[in-house]
């Protein structure tokens, strides 16, 4: 049996690992930008889709279906992003006789449009955030809602996710501009510019419930995740369990999540997201009908393999655990390591990973899609991988996270690692006092610039540069004010692909 992953990066590797555990052969697809990527070179089979742009590769349904024919793959897993929540893709797979590892196309469709899913949830008795229930025709309609519900409000893309097409609006004057920008962004990201509005809750938490289900009618809530550490509505750090959820609220969240899954006959792994207000009330946000980026924190705490369960379920097998067999233990935290420069507004930082050293040891799990020498392309989401740590309790998990971050080296591209090193030392983070708007405020008031070298480190640097200068490695001149001739040497070093080319022997 062969399974094709219609995706790239760390999630393709994650799914391949589950395949190996289940004795299923692996099929990678790739664009020209990814020929040498780890997800290709670890796979049993690999098929080129097309040029780098996603529309010609990872989003091309005909080319992906062609790749299953070529290799004889009968299973297809979409990962997250790309075609993961595209009902047409799920249908096309079924039409081609393939087993789609995910829920039914109908379930994807029902949850795919945020406005219609909100209507569904209201009918099922699941609380939703006050908001408009259909795509706005114009800005005036949104301004009407703002007047009624009161500002601030949040504009969101009906087809959306991941913070794209999302805008916070503080007053009616800003509605028109925000609507235009959000709609344009949504159109670019999802091919659908539809926008609706929600009341913006004050300092809410983002808490979500993991659902595991099979095609035999079993459906289990496998704990919740705390995902409130967000930057502009994009998750940055996730945890399991949530420190903000007591037993009563937890039971309510599970019930609501199971009700939501029930409505659409959900029969795979998926996630129901909620906003949790400070008073313990919660509101349905959306259901992600796919594997979630942050699924590993649930796996670590609950001792399950969600990807294996998803594949088993797609093959018609039952979940390998009953609702009372699972006991959560300890605490897990995930950091999303992005090739973004946190000192420059998190702008993407493509380039070559000159050096990669992963943290290892107790409580450390690495899900990464790069290796030393990998090229980080501008064509795709700049996530390099995820650092997942677990411990007996949150304090131990945080201690191990701090330790792992001190071992984690990525040189060559800017990453979000410096952000995590500061966060892990922050008192509010350590004591769990945060909400979905907390990080944006924190970033505005905390610098992430490099630490100045100590005197000992300066001595190290001077020795290291002297050793390099006499050894086999190229070091361009000093960091002092450039002079004419030294500048040329630098240029020369730079133009060569490797630091050791062409510089004259000294």
């Amino acid at each position, binding site marked *: 049996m062969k399974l094709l992953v219609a995706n790239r990066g760390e999630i393709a590797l994650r799914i391949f690992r589950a395949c190996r555990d289940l004795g299923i052969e692996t099929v990678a697809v790739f664009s020209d930008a990814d020929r040498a990527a780890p997800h290709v070179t670890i796979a049993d089979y690999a098929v080129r889709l097309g040029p780098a742009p996603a529309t010609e590769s990872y989003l091309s349904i005909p080319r992906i279906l062609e790749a299953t024919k070529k290799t004889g793959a009968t299973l297809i897993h979409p990962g997250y992003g790309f075609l993961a929540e595209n009902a047409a893709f799920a249908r096309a797979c079924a039409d081609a006789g393939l087993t789609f590892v995910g829920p039914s196309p109908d379930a994807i469709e029902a949850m795919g449009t945020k406005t219609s899913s909100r209507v569904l949830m209201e009918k099922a008795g699941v609380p939703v955030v006050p908001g408009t229930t259909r795509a706005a025709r114009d800005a005036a309609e949104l301004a009407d809602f703002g007047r009624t519900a009161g500002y601030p409000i949040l504009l969101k893309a009906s087809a959306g996710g991941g913070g794209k097409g999302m805008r916070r609006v503080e007053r009616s004057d800003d509605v028109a501009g925000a609507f235009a920008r959000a709609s344009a962004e949504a159109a670019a990201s999802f091919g659908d510019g539809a926008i609706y509005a929600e009341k913006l809750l004050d300092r809410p938490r983002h808490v979500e419930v993991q659902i595991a289900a099979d095609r035999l009618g079993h459906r289990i809530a496998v704990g919740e995740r705390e995902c409130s550490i967000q930057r502009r509505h994009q998750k940055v750090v996730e945890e399991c369990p949530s420190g903000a959820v007591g037993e009563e609220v937890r039971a309510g969240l599970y019930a609501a999540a199971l009700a939501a899954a029930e409505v659409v006959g959900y029969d795979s792994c998926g996630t129901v997201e909620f906003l949790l207000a400070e008073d313990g009330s919660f509101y349905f946000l959306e259901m992600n009908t796919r594997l979630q980026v942050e699924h590993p924190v649930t796996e670590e705490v609950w001792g399950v393999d969600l990807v294996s369960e998803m594949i088993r379920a797609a093959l018609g097998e039952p979940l390998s655990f009953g609702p009372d067999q699972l006991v959560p233990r300890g605490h897990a935290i995930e950091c999303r390591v992005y090739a973004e420069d946190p000192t420059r507004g998190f702008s993407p930082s493509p380039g070559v990973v000159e050096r990669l050293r992963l943290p290892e040891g107790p409580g450390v799990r690495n899900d990464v899609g790069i290796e030393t020498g990998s090229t980080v392309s501008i064509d795709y989401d700049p996530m390099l991988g995820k650092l997942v740590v677990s411990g007996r309790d949150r304090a131990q998990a945080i201690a191990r996270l701090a330790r792992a971050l001190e071992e984690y080296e990525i*040189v*060559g591209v800017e990453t979000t690692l410096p952000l995590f090193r500061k966060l892990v030392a922050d008192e509010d983070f350590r004591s769990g006092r945060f909400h979905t708007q907390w990080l944006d405020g924190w970033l505005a008031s905390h610098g992430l610039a490099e630490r100045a070298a100590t005197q000992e480190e300066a*001595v190290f640097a001077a020795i*290291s540069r002297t050793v390099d200068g006499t050894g086999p490695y190229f*070091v361009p001149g000093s960091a002092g004010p450039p002079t004419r001739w030294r500048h040329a*040497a630098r240029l020369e070093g730079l133009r060569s692909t490797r630091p050791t080319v062409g510089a004259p022997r000294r």
Partner: protein
Amino acid sequence: MKARRRFHREVEGSDPQEILVEIRDAARAWVKTSDGEVHADFSRLPDGRTSVILPSGRQLAGRIAPRPGGRAETWVGAHRLAIRLSDPLRELAGEGAVGSAAAEIRARIPGRVVEVRVSAGHLVSPGTTLLVLEAMKMQNEIQAESEARVVAVECVAGQAVDTGAILVRLEPRPAE
């Protein structure tokens, strides 16, 4: 392995601090700073980093990563640090003056000469492209680093060259 270098550490709002380094043998360096003199133990690591042990026992491992524009990143452990070390001696002498009178431009990796742009007698300036070397599927422009005169060209277009092969011989000339 012997070498001696003098750095100025530039610190905002105060005078630069001098750091003098002498590599005494394959494992020992002598360092003089405004705090005094120390002997430090160093070792090149297999991955290209350097480990330094100071007299206190303090161990630091990291590397200098060259960057565009003649900058270099200083990494210690998993941290990139803010530090500015300049080298006044090199600035006075120019790169080409280190070592012998005539500079030899050599291939640092095996490749193929695609194009030769100069011939004997040419006067070149910093940045003048001497030749183009194809290696690892990339076209690398090999440039002059200082004001110089081409003494001899030791390769021809199309030729495969090995690590260390002399490509061009230069002789320094003063900047005008």
